[in-house]
């Protein structure tokens, strides 16, 4: 089984490496990060700006490219299914063949300017690592979600509408709803429920983890203090990383189950 996964992974990577989107994705991060450094931002300023880019662009790009790629490889999947290969091997081969090139493209694109900057200025780039880590986790999460959607909806238009809708929900609407709740119940202490809400949105979770890492939670006044107390504690760290881990796993487990019994 492992042998089949590696083989499928290899050919999928070979195929996706030809895709110009992957190069554009790397170039986007490369030019933007380098531009921010050149505009005079130091490491901290650049990382702050990149934080917002990472938590918005990585999910958007991964969920759309993932779905588009999966819809385009429907016949390819069919061809492989007619070979003596287990469905679950094919499933994992495709998942890693799609997510790992995206991880590499993102890491290289954003990493080169940081490394160059560290080399040129001798500054420490410690804030790069949490950005990289969260970006990688978001890649695995949103490729997984796109995989689930592509398996659930055979119709490409519906599937693409669905992934864009989901991204919009996590990136914009969810925060709007939480703000609405805070506004409506402003007489009550809401910090703890909000910690709960955060866990149900991977983008928010990544944002909070990064804000705390960059040590600017003071900007968020009392809420920030409560967050820092929770997410800064070892229990908070374990919980939030477990939540992100579950965000990787749950869509994949559901997708695998569907994939095993799907008609092709």
């Amino acid at each position, binding site marked *: 089984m492992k042998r*089949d996964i590696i*083989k*499928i992974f290899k*050919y999928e990577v*070979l*195929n996706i490496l*030809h*895709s110009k989107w992957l190069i554009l994705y790397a170039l986007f991060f490369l030019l933007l990060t380098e531009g921010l450094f050149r505009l005079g931002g130091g490491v901290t300023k650049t990382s702050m700006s990149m934080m917002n880019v990472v938590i918005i662009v990585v999910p958007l790009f991964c969920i759309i490219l993932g779905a588009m790629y999966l819809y*385009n*490889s*429907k*016949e*390819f999947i*069919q*061809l*492989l*299914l*007619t*070979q*003596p*290969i*287990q*469905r679950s091997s094919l499933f994992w081969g495709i998942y890693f063949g799609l997510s790992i090139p995206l991880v590499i493209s993102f890491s290289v694109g954003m990493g080169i300017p940081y490394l160059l900057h560290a080399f040129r200025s001798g500054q420490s780039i410690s804030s790069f690592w949490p950005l990289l880590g969260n970006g990688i986790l978001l890649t695995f999460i949103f490729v997984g979600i796109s995989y689930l959607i592509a398996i659930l909806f055979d119709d490409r238009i519906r599937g693409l509408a669905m992934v864009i809708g989901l991204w919009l929900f996590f990136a914009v609407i969810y925060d709007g709803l939480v703000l609405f709740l805070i506004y409506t119940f402003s007489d009550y202490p809401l910090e703890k429920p909000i910690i709960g809400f955060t866990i149900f949105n991977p983008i928010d979770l990544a944002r909070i983890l990064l804000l705390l890492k960059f040590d600017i939670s003071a900007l968020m006044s009392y809420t920030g203090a409560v967050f820092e107390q929770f997410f800064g504690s070892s229990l908070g760290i374990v919980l939030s990383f477990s939540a992100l881990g579950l965000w990787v796993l749950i869509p994949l487990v559901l997708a695998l189950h569907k994939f095993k*019994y*799907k*008609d*092709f």
Partner: protein
Amino acid sequence: MIQLSDLSKRYGKLQVLNSINLSIDSGKITAIVGPNGAGKTTILKLILDLIKANNGNIRIDEKSIGNDFKYRQNIGYMAQIARFPENLTVKKILTMIKDLREGRYETLDEELIHKFDLKSEFDKQVKNLSGGNTQKVNASIAFLFSPEYLILDEPTASLDPIASSILKDKIKKEKEAGKTIILSSHIMAEVEELADEVIFLLEGNIYYQGSTKGLIEVTGEENLERSIARMMRGVEQ
């Protein structure tokens, strides 16, 4: 021998196969015929486990296909429409399929690759191939590992007359070598030329299974096309 018992398939509310029973003999060419939407492709895909039945079971050489993917080592499949990863070259695709089957086949049969002259297309990316050439690649892959069973869905539909004759000759040759071939087709002349057995399928039910000659005799028509046409009219009335 392939046995289908009580096999049913539904897509949503649409019943595609109604509890059909079939046995397909080894060493023969069996053709599944019927109008569009009769369930021909569904049967072929069920045998390959590409789609899952709602009911019933499929046995190949007395073994239920269940969840054991290894039985596909003995099957070569040619889909009606094949699309390959468009950025890979023909050569890469063939290498990939061979690589995936490594250690799971005995001999390689590259006769079709030579006869279709696919070597000249080897370095082309799949997206630059014509429909006919893509179908030639598709056919070559089906026969590549000398499988015991060949499942061919409308094999000659998008091939030119030369390629179509090459493929038909190959099908006959494999039958002579003792292989079991199941194909679906709209072209009755082709079925008459190739098939020993015919299965006539309409709206998910089997209306005839038996020898090609037998069907012509039963209906009293001059050829297979007219026999099938008569059966279809008969069912409608």
